[in-house]
């Protein structure tokens, strides 16, 4: 359900950087630990974008897997939800990757020089 709040943040960021130009594509990076449901995000974004320069824009999400590191030195990609080290069973683990939530770029439609034929 936080896809609505996140969709709104994405929209505000994209509209700000579009500077009035129509937006065709919004590229976002989402870490697995953010627990974002991409379909739900697309759906919410499309609705929120109505009436803005982002109306009809495609939302492209790059999903980053979660990677953890234990103090025993073991590093692993998180597949099932446990933050305990699969090697030593310890709980002193840190997150290396997978917490991103950012807009990377947008693609806008740029009017060519305004000379009329």
């Amino acid at each position, binding site marked *: 359900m*936080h896809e609505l709040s996140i969709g709104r943040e994405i929209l505000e960021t994209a509209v700000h950087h579009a500077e009035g130009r129509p937006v065709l594509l919004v590229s976002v990076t989402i870490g697995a630990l*953010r627990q974002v449901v991409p379909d739900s995000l697309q759906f919410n974004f499309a609705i929120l974008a109505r009436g803005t320069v982002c109306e009809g824009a495609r939302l492209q999400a790059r999903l980053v897997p979660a990677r953890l590191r234990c103090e025993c030195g073991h590093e692993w990609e998180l597949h099932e*939800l*446990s933050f305990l080290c699969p090697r030593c069973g310890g709980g002193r683990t840190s997150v290396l990757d997978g917490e991103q939530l950012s807009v990377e770029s947008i693609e806008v*439609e740029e009017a060519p020089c305004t000379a009329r034929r």
Partner: protein
Amino acid sequence: MHRTKVRVASDLLDANETIARANRADFDRAGVRVVNLMSAPGAGKTALLERVLIDGVGELRVGVLEGDVQGSLDADRLSALHVPVTQLNTDPGFGGECHLDANMVRSALGAMELGEVDLLVIENVGNLVCPAEFRVGEDARAMISSVTEGEDKPLKYPLMFRTCELVVVNKIDLLPHLDFSLERFLENLERVNPGVEHMLLSARTGKGVEGFARWLTAVAGGEAAHA
């Protein structure tokens, strides 16, 4: 017409973090420590606060910022206890947000007498998802998970269970009537947030509530403060 790529590289939560830091600076200046209290709807946030405020938290002067989508039912309950309560509704002007963010809390700062409290408890909107994403300038975060919600909740809402310094397990007076396995809940909690502090209590009977009062006192004293 042609396509142009515009580099943005903007962290979506940066704007919120910036305002949260400004809130934190204001709280620090006023000498107020702040707890962000979160849970699902009906887990007992207001009930726990009522219980703990009736008994008192040592010599601490406690204020409450009450976040709700609509209405002032909770604020009214707490006002009856003669503690300073400020109501913050997310509905008018905010589009009925399901959480408090740093900017909403900022908008309420003017209505609060920060000089009159040592500890401010911000009761977030009941929700296990969105509040986890938005810091509001707090020193520590606590969440309540009640036994009627089931033992699988840490696995379903890891973001929330991982973001807190304290997990309160509420409604333990109901355990004899439920299939809830406390052991399995604590196992799930350990998998999601290894080593996190937790406490068992019943806001209804008062059992274990003194532990929560002690934790609040520690936060007010600068312990358990979050970076």
